[in-house]
């Protein structure tokens, strides 16, 4: 085992981790960015659609182009990048256990930013383990990164933005989306994303669910059925759709194992994807020196993950003395303005409310501890 030390260790080189690394390194801190994949960028390189937001959020730029820009900035910075490095544990003395191919490292850091991202939710129904049933995110990786079409005839479950966008991209890749099935009575994602796939002829079946997927060794068809307001299948409404692929776009949840290991305090907020680590407006958790950014703090989208990453990067660098509190506040305020712009409107409101609630619970936690972290 080799012992290494750094000032700021960042786990995860997706949009949040990259932005944290770029900001902290720009301010002068010694940064080590660790990612288990062979290439940095997280999920950005499979986002082939134009992003929303405003100019400051790089609206109108396709996700993979944002990824390319971030990698260029990272290249120019002094941040050290450790790829194919699996952070397998976070220990109480601020040491991260990392395995990189056949090498084993213990990386000691003054500050740690966890930007591990999220993972897809799964569903169980008869046939859910048949080859051809997969997460929508996995299908998106196949078509946009590996350029492999998982199937020709797809049934998508879930009408959030992921389900809508991946349906569209599967069609761009040459597949037919036979139906998009949504258990709720209304569409979850943006109307404009739904509009795109409607114009391409995809039926969106709200108040419907997948009852069963059938096939001999692989997906051959899907039995869908209507559901009542309590999501119970209404007998007699079943019908079959021939398909070779079923994609599940039923939400994501934060990847929080390392934060748990480190002893961070948690709170449960369904709007953010479940149990999330408590953190303050510096993105610092209840454990001094451990920060969080991106989907690990609650599932949102890449645009807000990038802003949170910047916030954590600035705060961690400031706490090491790389900039004074006044300058740090100025930089953080700029980020906060952009961040709250992304959480306005009917769609953002729910997340904003949950984030505000999270902050309140963090404040209550600190107050209980006498205003200081234990």
């Amino acid at each position: 085992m080799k012992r290494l030390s750094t000032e700021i260790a960042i786990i995860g080189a997706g949009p949040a981790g990259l932005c944290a690394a770029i900001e902290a390194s720009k301010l002068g801190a010694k940064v080590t960015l660790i990612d288990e994949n062979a290439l940095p960028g997280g999920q950005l390189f499979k986002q082939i659609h134009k992003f929303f937001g405003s100019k400051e959020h790089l609206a109108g730029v396709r996700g993979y182009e944002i990824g390319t820009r971030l990698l260029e900035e990272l290249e120019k910075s002094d941040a050290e990048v450790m790829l194919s490095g699996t952070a397998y544990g976070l220990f109480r003395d601020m040491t991260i256990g990392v395995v990189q191919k056949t090498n084993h490292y213990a990386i000691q850091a003054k500050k740690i930013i966890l930007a591990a991202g999220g993972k897809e939710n799964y569903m169980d129904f008869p046939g859910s383990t048949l080859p051809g049933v997969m997460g929508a995110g996995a299908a998106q990786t196949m078509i946009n990164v590996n350029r492999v079409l998982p199937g020709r005839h797809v049934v998508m479950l879930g009408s959030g933005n992921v389900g809508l966008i991946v349906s569209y991209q599967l069609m761009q890749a040459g597949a037919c989306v036979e139906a998009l099935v949504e258990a709720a009575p209304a569409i979850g994602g943006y109307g404009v994303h739904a509009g795109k796939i409607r114009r391409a002829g995809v039926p969106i079946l709200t108040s419907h669910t997948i009852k069963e997927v059938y096939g001999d060794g692989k997906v051959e068809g899907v039995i869908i059925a209507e559901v009542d307001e309590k999501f119970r299948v209404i007998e007699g409404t079943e019908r079959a759709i021939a398909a070779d692929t079923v994609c599940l776009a039923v939400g994501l949840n934060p990847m929080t194992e390392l934060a748990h290991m480190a002893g961070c305090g948690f709170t449960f907020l369904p709007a953010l994807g479940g149990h999330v680590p408590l953190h303050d407006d510096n993105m610092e958790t209840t454990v001094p020196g451990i920060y969080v950014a991106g989907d690990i703090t609650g599932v949102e989208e890449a645009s807000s993950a990038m802003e949170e990453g910047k916030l954590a990067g600035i705060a961690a660098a400031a706490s090491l003395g790389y900039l004074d509190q006044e300058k740090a506040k100025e930089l953080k305020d700029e980020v906060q303005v952009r961040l709250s712009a992304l959480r306005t409107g009917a769609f953002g409101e729910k997340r904003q409310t949950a984030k505000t609630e999270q902050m309140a619970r963090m404040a209550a936690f600190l107050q209980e501890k006498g205003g200081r972290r234990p």
Partner: protein
Amino acid sequence: MKEGVRYTGIASEEELKNSFGIPSAARMKQGPVAVIECVQEIPCNPCEGTCPFGAITIGDPITNLPHLNETLCTGCGTCVAMCPGQAIFLVNDLSEQEAEVTFPFEYWPLPQVGDEVDAVNRAGEVVCKGRVTKVRNPVAYKNTCVVTISIPNAFKDDVRSMKRVIKQTPMELAEQKERASQLVCRCEELTRGDIEKAIDEGATTIDGIKRRTRAGMGLCQGKSCERLVARILSEKLGRPLAEFLPATYRAPVRPISMGVIADNCEKE
């Protein structure tokens, strides 16, 4: 069945009426004009900054719905390509018989000017035939192609896209196969199919084709194939020929005897 974008993915008449992006019927008669079908308050404002004529206003906060100033709008179509939600169209009320509808299109293969296509409504249902009159896909549009089709005037408020081409008839396939076997680069014995395959794999420049296939690296150094390759790129990607710069040239640009050069070097 409940109406409206939340339930169907399609903005209802009511929602469109209450938004601020729909031009008057009178304006549509004066030439192409933007029709902004954006009815949900989402954090997004590229249309505002992208309009060269300041005809779209969102302001602060960025969740505001876009307001169209129909007098300032020239129907240039930039916003059609730049709206990440693909919610902007152009309508041109040409005559009592004919109208043009312009929409964003991101599916291969791109249509060609003159093609007869199936015009579809907001639900993807074919409502009439359309004839493609314009296909615009400059670099500035960042791979969102903007297609204009001519349709019977009666359908101008319904048609918002065209059916993507998925399946070809056996005859089209046979024709395509024959075309695909046509030699394009004789030196390296490459067919049109080889070049098209390289484009499918991501080549967007003559150099890109060259690296993947060796087209232009043979005896003639691209003299016969370069222009053909440029034309295939232009056709397949829907971009003007002017955008395809020649491949990188390196000495020797004519076939010469390497021995001659080598011998001379030795003497020096």
